[in-house]
């Protein structure tokens, strides 16, 4: 129990800089990549007008998220951002579910993964904003309602990255800590499978969905 919150790290010194690699997070991300590639191959192999089992699942997921993106961003935006939104959701969903397999851990349990995804959404949203409104109109929004509000507006935008990534991180890491402590106290009897189902499957799905939807809405706030 003493090692709560400890991370295995590999430190490489290169040109006088210490580069730190969180080994578990990197390895588990590769596992998720593997599962995603496998899923993609199964869904697109032997495509047919009358879909087979995997193709149906793939079409349902893609169609659903395309629709959600179109609701928020119109048709043109959906064509552009739909693929990114869909893959973002699938990556996070599998990441959050990975913890229910013994000896595997959620890559989203490491703050760096949600932070990277949050930063990506932030950059995409602001790029979309600058592109659709032009830089001048984009920059002018920071000086609303008064010019001296600028620093606070900038901090408010930064806080979005903090909140979106800590929401995912806190939920996933919180769940895994609760599972760890309860398993330790109950000698892994009875309760842990239920907790895994709740925190891994249920909370994991909801948080992946919330993260994806927030990214969509952040883009749509910047565009409109």
């Amino acid at each position, binding site marked *: *129990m*003493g090692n*709560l*919150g400890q991370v295995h790290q590999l430190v490489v010194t290169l040109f006088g800089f210490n580069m730190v690699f969180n080994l578990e997070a990197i390895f588990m991300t590769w596992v998720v990549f593997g599962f995603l590639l496998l899923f993609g191959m199964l869904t697109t192999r032997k495509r047919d007008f009358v879909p087979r089992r995997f193709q149906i699942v793939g079409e349902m997921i893609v169609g659903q998220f395309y629709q*959600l993106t179109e*609701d*928020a*961003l119109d048709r043109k935006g959906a064509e552009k951002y739909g693929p990114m939104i869909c893959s973002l959701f699938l990556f996070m969903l599998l990441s959050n579910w990975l913890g229910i397999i013994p000896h595997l851990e959620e890559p989203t349990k490491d703050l760096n993964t949600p932070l990277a995804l949050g930063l990506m959404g932030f950059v995409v949203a602001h790029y979309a904003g600058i592109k659709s409104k032009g830089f001048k109109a984009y920059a002018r929004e920071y000086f609303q309602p008064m010019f001296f509000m600028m620093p*606070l507006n900038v*901090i*408010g935008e930064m*806080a*979005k990255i*903090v*909140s979106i990534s*800590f*929401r995912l991180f*806190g*939920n996933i*890491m*919180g*769940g895994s*800590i*609760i599972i760890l*402590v309860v398993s330790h*106290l109950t000698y892994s009897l009875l309760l842990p499978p239920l907790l895994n189902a*709740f925190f891994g499957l*249920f*909370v994991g799905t*909801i948080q992946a*969905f*919330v993260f994806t*939807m*927030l990214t969509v*809405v*952040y883009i*749509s*706030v910047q565009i*409109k």
Partner: protein
Amino acid sequence: MDPVTLTKLAANVGAGLCIGFGAVGAAIGEGYTAAEANLAVSRNPKISGDLFKNMLVGQAVAESASIFALVIAILLLFVDSPGSGEIKAAALFGAGLSMGFGAIGSGLGSGFPGGKACVGISRQPAVSSRLTTNMLIGSAVSQTPAIFSMVVALMLIFMDFSTQPLQPTWAALIGAGLSTGMAAIGSGIGGGLAAGASCDSIARQPRTAGQVTTTMLVGQAVAQTPSIFGLLVSFILMFKSFPAATSVSASMALLSAGICMGFGGIGPGIGNGMTAEGAVRWVARNIEHAGDLMRTMLVGQAVAQSTAIYAMVISLVLIFVV
């Protein structure tokens, strides 16, 4: 006082506060659910069995925040975690405060969807399974702030802080408990408001159920942001190693960083929940403009959130600068 007695004393006081405060919210929330269930039964007595079942399920979910508090109180009373001394005592006391305050909002909040779902089922029995599902999702997401508090409490109980210097660390640990615990009050209530409105709206306009649930989830997620800021401040207070201080002022700065973020999170959480409540209501009535409504909600919440951001900025200044 010898270290073992002091640790025991802190654990006992922490356990008392934990379940004492933790019992407040869930009881009120469950009472609200039961009151609405009475209304529902009087409107549609034919399905009173279904309504009764739904009320009990809703109350059971609302109770989970109090059960978290009970678990932490039992851990504090009966489980010997390693170490003893002043720092351990502060950590255990902080754990009790965190979970005790943290259970108030979520317990209170998740009573709303339970009650509204009962009324909704009496109005529109055809969509009762959809309403129960929505109620369960909504109240489970309202529990998130309580889960954050439980995580902080568990970390405070089981992590080893004994290598840190006593002088600022004790204050940092109590501050960590207060920050997440108090900030969770507002977010829990706010999330519950949004979930309640969504159950209401699905009963009125069953065709809009998918969009209403999506709006509810996004609204609740943003309403949770203050408690996430609280969690962030708690993590910094727990994981940053502070240099040993000679004066008491450094300790007080860390303690007040926690209090600042904790109080600062209450209002924005409730306010954001109200915004989400409004958005959910009107999405159901005007589904064609759901995109505009969600954007307006998000911008409004961002403005209402700015006070939580002020509190976070000040507590980060208290931690890193003062």
